[in-house]
């Protein structure tokens, strides 16, 4: 892990009318880091992530991703990141292979690159036999792993994962995190939101958002020490209890 910041955020804010979804958050993420972005429902995680991905225009504050400004260079950012949204977003009526080919194609990858890498990825996912099946017919766990592989297929520097393991069984979650570790080992910076506190323990550093603000940011072990807690679960509960808003 180098000391170079690939994401730096300073006072980033998003308002929807009078509602402040993200309230002056500041942090840096280093290259190759697994950065956990925690918070209760409605804390503003997804909004913050969408601003960093160039999907949502910030109201104020500064942020650069992969060295590009989120206000003016959002399309350059998009070339350098991968993104896996909360909603499953592969095409269910396309096959596994066709989905991979489509997304790799619009990132401008060559046919040769696509062909070779598709084979490799399918092998890793043990999906070689399912390559020509419609994605809609796969079980959820497989879909999620495939979505992750598609998100990093074009070899981005950073990948943003928005609750990637929601609704997935523990075994698949474990496998999913193995894939995340492997991607990180290949130098991809991981920016991940999650609700599972055991997953928070896998992260290099963790930030916890409450009501649009970042209330805590450190390694899991330092956070446990700071909040005098035995597990990340307790750290989270102590912080989240202060929350005044929820998604309902």
């Amino acid at each position: 892990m180098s000391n170079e910041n690939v994401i730096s955020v300073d006072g980033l804010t998003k308002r929807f009318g009078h509602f402040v979804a993200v309230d002056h958050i500041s942090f840096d993420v280093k290259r190759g880091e697994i950065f956990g972005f925690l918070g209760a429902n409605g804390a503003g995680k997804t909004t913050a992530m969408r601003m960093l991905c160039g999907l949502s225009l910030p109201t104020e504050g500064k942020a650069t991703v992969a060295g590009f400004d989120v206000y003016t260079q959002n399309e350059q950012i998009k070339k350098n990141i991968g993104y896996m949204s909360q909603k499953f977003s592969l095409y269910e009526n396309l096959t596994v292979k066709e989905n991979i080919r489509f997304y790799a194609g619009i990132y401008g990858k060559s046919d040769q690159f696509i062909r070779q890498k598709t084979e490799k990825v399918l092998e890793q996912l043990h999906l070689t036999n399912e390559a020509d099946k419609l994605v809609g017919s796969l079980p959820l766990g497989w879909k999620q792993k495939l979505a992750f592989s598609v998100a990093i297929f074009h070899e981005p520097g950073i990948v943003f994962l928005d609750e990637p393991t929601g609704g997935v069984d523990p075994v698949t979650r474990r496998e999913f995190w193995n894939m995340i570790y492997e991607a990180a080992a290949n130098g991809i910076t991981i920016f991940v939101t999650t609700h599972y506190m055991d997953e928070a323990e896998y992260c290099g550093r963790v930030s916890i958002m409450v009501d649009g603000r970042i209330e805590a940011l450190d390694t899991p072990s330092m956070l446990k020490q700071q909040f005098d807690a035995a597990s990340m679960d307790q750290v989270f509960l102590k912080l989240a209890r202060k929350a005044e808003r929820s998604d309902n």
Partner: protein
Amino acid sequence: MRTLKFLLQKEFRQIFRDPSILRIIFVVPIIQLLVLPWAADYEIKNLKLSIIDHDRSTYSRQLISKITSTNYFLLEEYSDSFHDSEEEMEGGKVDIALEIPADFERDLVRDNEAPVFLAVNAVNGVKAGLGSAYLQSIIRDFNSEVRAKWIQMPRFSPELNIEVVTANWFNPSMNYKFFMVPGILAVLLTMVGASLSALNIVKEKEIGTIEQINVTPIRKHHFILGKLIPFWVLGLVILTIGLAIAWLAYGIVPLGSMLVIYAFSALYLLAVLGLGLLISTITHNQQQAMLISFFLIMVFVLLGGLYTSIDSMPGWARAITHFNPVAYFVEVIRMVVLKGSGFADIAPYMLIMFVFAITLNGWAIYSYKKRS
């Protein structure tokens, strides 16, 4: 360019895997063109007639047989009093009542004129208007026959008689199918084009894939083109099916060149698809997109000159039709199919359609936002 290739590949695959789209493409044109022209017909037939003949003379019988010998009227009943006929009319069993007064024959012979009374059920305005017009022209005809028989025409008629002879140009037999089928073709292209494209992007919004597209470095106009081109091709396929049905089922062969029809339709489709894509970018779910596109299609079709003549609309409505692509298409396709108009004749319409296509698609690209 390469991006576009991938987009088109994906879009066509999805279309061919979607049975409902395929059904729309093939079944809708067949049903619309095979069923509607027979039903949507301006000709009024089988009007139910009640006759109150107080005269019961030779002439009155001749008049009645002349009326019933056409296939426009069905003699529903002879009644004894107008009151009876009125009751039947109120019950909806009779459309027109014709009362012949008691001294019809005598008056006709002696005074050269005799009144008859016509009562029309005007609940259905078109039926009433056309029905009474038919009946009046039959009576007028009868009248002149009688006059010819009774009045010895002097060599130089003291009365000036203007005889009007009509010839129906471009549709000599006044076959309504020649008139309706091209129009229905226009509606078909509009409906399928606008609603399929309106539903498409919004569907990606609903299932969330648009988010994944928006986070790629894809260019906005590539994305819109990737949506536009497949439906444009489909539209031309539908047009081809439609023209084939018009030929096979009705023997309608365009007088003008096919090239002109396809060139104009190609531009027209770009315009309607642009409208659909625009709707798609400003709505959030398929219901909204469907409702808006149906509202617009309804207005466009009713003000499009297909069912009613644009020339007879009030000024404000005619002003609206200047912004109605359907009106231009109905006009042009009738010109080409019935009159054989060529490129020179439809050039102004081509230009207008080009402006429509550029504006609507440009607007769609503008209103499609990758970042909120």
